């Protein structure tokens, strides 16, 4: 009971009007719990999609892009655009393979930011089983490294992905292919890349969340893929690079482009729509939360305004007995802050429990079992900070008004 007299008065006012205090605090509570809940849902979803996009996209992919012949070779020496050495440039079919891929991989590994590098052979193929044919993409990889980068294991429905290394002509096929060609683990499948068809054995079936991938993609051992397309062991079409921090990918990709002379595509470029979706969700979320906090703020503003209207004589007396304007502001602002704090604490607990409850809702779509919710502590800190800012802002104006009360006019009536 040794409170500062301003706090003492603020507490007494709050206590003597419990109902209004509770209602005002409930407004803040809903605002903050909604903030936490929606932030958790959004971050969970974003993380999920981001992780998912990394399950089939490397942070950086280096490949040989067909280029249009350069018609301006002489510009750099003539310093103008006067001379064209070609008037009708065309795309030139080049080998899709990279030159000296293992040398490149070796030099990429030297970068301390790089977490993983793996070569890949990709080819468009035709899958045949019986009389049914399907178009698709086959990638030849080192399956163990591939698993480290993209979590192949997590997507496996049947079979063991490591069998790719054990079975000489093994192949992992997408679930869509398996369904359409009616294939099971152990069955044979004919794969045609270029001219020569080859019979492979299905050692595993995987399912991602992307139907398009499941319907077309298959994994084989990299040497098998080189064999299938009729190339030698140094034939590599893509080098996939993962970094320790994927946010550095755009910068690192430009560096690698300069270093290798090939096209280096970072995951941001490959997933523009994902980034756009993140941004749109952030806008939706922030506007909803903004509205909730605004409403809570108005609630506090209203209640304090009413309190001041009812207590205007008491404020006048406080001022007559020597309370300065600052002391009066302190009394009413403290009321707002206490309302905010009470609301914030309950809001945190409610928000956490709401998040926890929703994270148990079963979804069961693709590899997504439960609603992806993140429990990320900065959301809770932000929630409290926003809650307090709102209540202080909402409390300041009534408090300022109270401090301006002129005791003479009020007491003399």
């Amino acid at each position: 009971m040794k409170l500062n007299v301003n706090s003492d008065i603020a507490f007494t006012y709050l206590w003597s009007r419990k109902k209004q205090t509770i209602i005002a605090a409930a407004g803040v509570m809903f605002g903050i719990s909604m903030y936490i809940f929606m932030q958790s849902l959004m971050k969970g979803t974003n993380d999920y999609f981001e992780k998912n996009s990394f399950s089939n996209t490397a942070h950086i992919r280096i490949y040989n892009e067909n280029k249009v012949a350069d018609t301006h070779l002489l510009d750099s020496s003539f310093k103008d655009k006067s001379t064209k050495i070609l008037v009708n440039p065309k795309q030139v079919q080049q080998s899709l393979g990279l030159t000296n891929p293992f040398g490149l991989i070796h030099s990429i590994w030297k970068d301390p930011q790089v977490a993983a590098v793996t070569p890949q052979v990709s080819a468009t193929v035709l899958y045949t089983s019986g009389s049914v044919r399907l178009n698709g993409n086959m990638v030849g990889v080192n399956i163990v490294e591939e698993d480290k980068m993209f979590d192949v294991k997590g997507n496996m429905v049947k079979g063991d992905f490591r069998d790719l290394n054990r079975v000489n002509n093994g192949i992992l096929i997408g679930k869509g292919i398996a369904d359409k060609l009616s294939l099971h683990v152990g069955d044979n499948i004919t794969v045609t890349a270029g001219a020569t068809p080859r019979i492979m054995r299905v050692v595993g079936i995987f399912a991602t969340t992307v139907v398009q991938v499941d319907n077309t993609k298959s994994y084989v051992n990299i040497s098998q893929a080189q064999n299938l397309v009729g190339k030698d062991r140094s034939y590599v079409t893509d080098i996939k690079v993962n970094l320790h921090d994927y946010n550095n990918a755009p910068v690192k990709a430009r560096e690698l482009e300069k270093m290798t002379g090939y096209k280096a595509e970072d995951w941001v470029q490959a997933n523009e729509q994902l980034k756009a979706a993140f941004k749109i969700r952030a806008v939706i979320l922030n506007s909803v939360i903004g509205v909730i906090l605004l409403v809570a703020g108005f609630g506090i503003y209203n209640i304090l305004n009413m309190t001041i209207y009812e207590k205007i004589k008491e404020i006048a007396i406080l001022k007559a007995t020597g309370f300065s304007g600052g002391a009066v502001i302190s009394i009413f602002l403290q009321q707002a802050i206490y309302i905010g704090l009470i609301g914030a604490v309950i809001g945190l607990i409610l928000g956490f429990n709401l998040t926890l409850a929703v994270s148990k809702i079963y979804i069961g779509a693709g590899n997504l079992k439960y609603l992806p919710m993140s429990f990320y502590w900065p959301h809770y800190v932000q929630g409290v900070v926003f809650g307090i800012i709102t209540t202080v802002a909402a409390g300041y104006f009534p408090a300022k008004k109270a401090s301006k009360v002129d005791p003479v006019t009020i007491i003399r009536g």
Partner: protein
Amino acid sequence: MTKPIALQSEKLTKYFYDPVKMPVLRDITMEVHKGEFVSIVGKSGCGKSTLLYVLSTMDRDYEGTLTINGTKVTGLDVNELAKIRNSSIGFVFQFHYLLPDFSCLKNVMIPGLRLGKYSYKEVEDRAYQKLKMFGVEDQALKMASKLSGGQQQRVAIARALINDPAIIMGDEPTGNLDSKNTGIVFDLFQQLSREFGQTLITVTHDEDFARRSDRIIEMADGEIKDHGH
């Protein structure tokens, strides 16, 4: 007189602007000595309450100068005035204006806590003493709204005294009281001025009350007609 001057005003002039500019106080020059018990009387509308609010430093809209305990208060800012009111002026109104959400004791304590000169415990003890002086110490822990009118006014006076102000001002402090309570309050006021040397300035309609005080200042039309010396 050899007693020091507690409050002095020089050529106080104040106007009301609504509906038209009209002087309510004209060139009021007066002084009140320390320990004096002064009553200001006059017809309704003569400006006596207005004068009191100017003297109390709450009303700052006037011309002329006002000096309290040797400090010129004219021109000080609101927060400095609030400090002066808190420490040196006790105010008693016609209506008690206690804070209904607090106990009587707390009501008395609040200006004392605001002053911050004494610890919480000391302020509490002093508040009890003041309530005892007015015979309402047994009501100390009741809510202010639960008391009778006379008791509430006595608590309000105790509140005015908590910081031992040099000057106590009353705007018809007995206006809402019956004759018995009026008597009690008057005796206490007299005791404060005679025994504790506190200065009292009251505005009153009660002729009997005024006659028994040390000096009567009579006002009419915003001017002092009789200083009562």
